[in-house]
């Protein structure tokens, strides 16, 4: 399958207003191509979903954007510049399983950790950081649990703690890796509301998402990925039966049957 022919309706040149712009990206693990000439851009201020079947390279794409893996070819930019950890304006929310929940810390401690990158290296967190963290906890609805040990929280609450940790970073771009997997309905509703609020205030949200039934309701933009880009653009243009069948295979029926 050669990618460039079916690339999105969106202009391929790196858009000046793009939050993320990727051109000609190739990533390979041990001679197996995971991402093949991926080319897209996601607009600022939008809430975009990265969707695709298992093994489509969604997490790999996030890691590539964050400069965590070696890329074979291509270029990546975040707000027009290559990603750099210092002063990046990017908050990353990892998959819940990727951290050590037995670590001895309270909910408040974890949220304060979101400020570490913005503080001088020798300074300890003080009253200011504490206040910001409590504000963020109130926004995700966990203010009352601030002094709980993190291992005592439910999966949904843990994910909300992560979102609060991202909030205190006051980022321009929020990258989330499957934020709603294994999360209860109440937590999911709180998080979606917050993410939409973030977008309205001008920041950008990009989430790897696997639940096709909620794509239309939650997101404004879509990047459909299966090793190559199958579609990219506003949800109502790109979330089509044809494109989804191309990504997931023919067994997927009509997109209109998806609520």
């Amino acid at each position, binding site marked *: 399958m050669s990618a460039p022919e079916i690339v999105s309706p969106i202009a391929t040149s790196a858009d000046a207003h793009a939050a993320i712009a990727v051109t000609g990206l190739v990533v390979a693990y041990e001679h197996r191509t995971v991402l093949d000439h991926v080319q897209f851009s996601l607009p600022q201020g939008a809430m975009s979903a990265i969707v695709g079947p298992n093994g489509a390279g969604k997490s790999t794409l996030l890691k590539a954007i*964050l400069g*965590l893996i070696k890329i074979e070819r291509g270029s990546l930019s975040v707000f027009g510049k290559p990603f750099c*950890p*210092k*002063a*990046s304006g*990017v908050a*990353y929310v*990892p998959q819940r399983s*990727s*951290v*050590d929940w037995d*670590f*001895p*810390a*309270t909910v408040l*401690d*974890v949220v304060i*950790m979101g400020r*570490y*990158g913005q*503080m001088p*290296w*020798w300074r*300890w*967190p003080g009253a200011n950081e504490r206040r910001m963290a409590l504000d963020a906890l109130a926004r995700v609805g966990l203010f009352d649990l601030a002094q709980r*040990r993190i291992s005592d929280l439910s999966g949904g609450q843990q994910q909300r703690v992560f979102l609060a*940790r991202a909030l205190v*970073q006051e980022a321009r771009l929020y990258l989330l890796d499957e934020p709603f997997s294994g999360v209860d309905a109440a937590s999911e509703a709180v998080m979606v509301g917050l993410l939409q609020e973030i977008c309205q205030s001008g920041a950008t949200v990009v989430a790897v998402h696997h639940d096709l039934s909620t794509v239309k309701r939650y997101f404004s933009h879509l990047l459909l990925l299966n090793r190559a880009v199958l579609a990219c653009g506003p949800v109502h243009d790109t979330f089509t039966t044809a494109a989804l069948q191309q990504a997931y295979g023919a067994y997927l029926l009509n997109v209109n049957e998806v609520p």
Partner: protein
Amino acid sequence: MADILLASWFWESTALVVITAALCALVGSFILLRKMSLLADAVSHSVLPGVVGAYLLVGYHTVAFLLGAVMSGLLCVWCVGFLLRHTRLKEDAATGVVFSSLFALGIVSVSRLKTVDLDPACVVFGEAMAARPGSLWLAIGLLLLAAILIALFFKPLSLGSFDPLQARLQGLPERQVHTGLLVMLALTTVAALRAVGLVLAIAFLITPAATAFVLTRRLRTMLGCALGLAVIESVVGMVLAVWLNVSPSGLIAAVALLVLISVLTFQTLAQRVSGTKLKAAEFVQ
């Protein structure tokens, strides 16, 4: 008994053991949280050939010992990494291969040297009673160094243990801190080797930190608790050892394990009695 407790040499050796214990507990807490207990075991065994090599080159010289220890400790870490990259060996097997080889090399050289300064049995369970005066200053210096470094790098140390990827993305010096911790571990082992021997060094690195880990729910309280436990366990152990006329290092290691087992037993019983998930830790706090 009474006159021993009044003797100044007893308090000098107790001070040495207590300070070494505190040093190990501080470094060991981060080792535990970063899941490097296995590596700590390996590195502390592997410093032996480095120390012996330094002894062969320049004689009994503390700085040379420290340098040799750091070099062979890092060599051990590098070798383990090499085996993991190039063979199918699992982490535990690779670690075991490297440290047992390096340790055996150290033992062969020590037994070949036949010197009064290094004795294979002393290497293993130390001679707290026959410590040299320099050992105390070395331990104090390293304890201060460890405390200062932890205060300065508390952020990357803690976030790097909880979520290393996040630490990197926030631009914290995660890799440097990791290497620094390994170097600190090697230095700590040298101090402990001279004061209390290898086995107690590992015991102090792991056991008080593990006990504090189950007793507390915040990193700062855990560090304080580990420190306190290490100090109390070593004082109790020293006094008991003098009273029973047995090896202090061995007794302190046994006491530390006893404390851990008691805490866990108490917690398990408390859970069973209350029938809830309420941890004993929350009673303590």
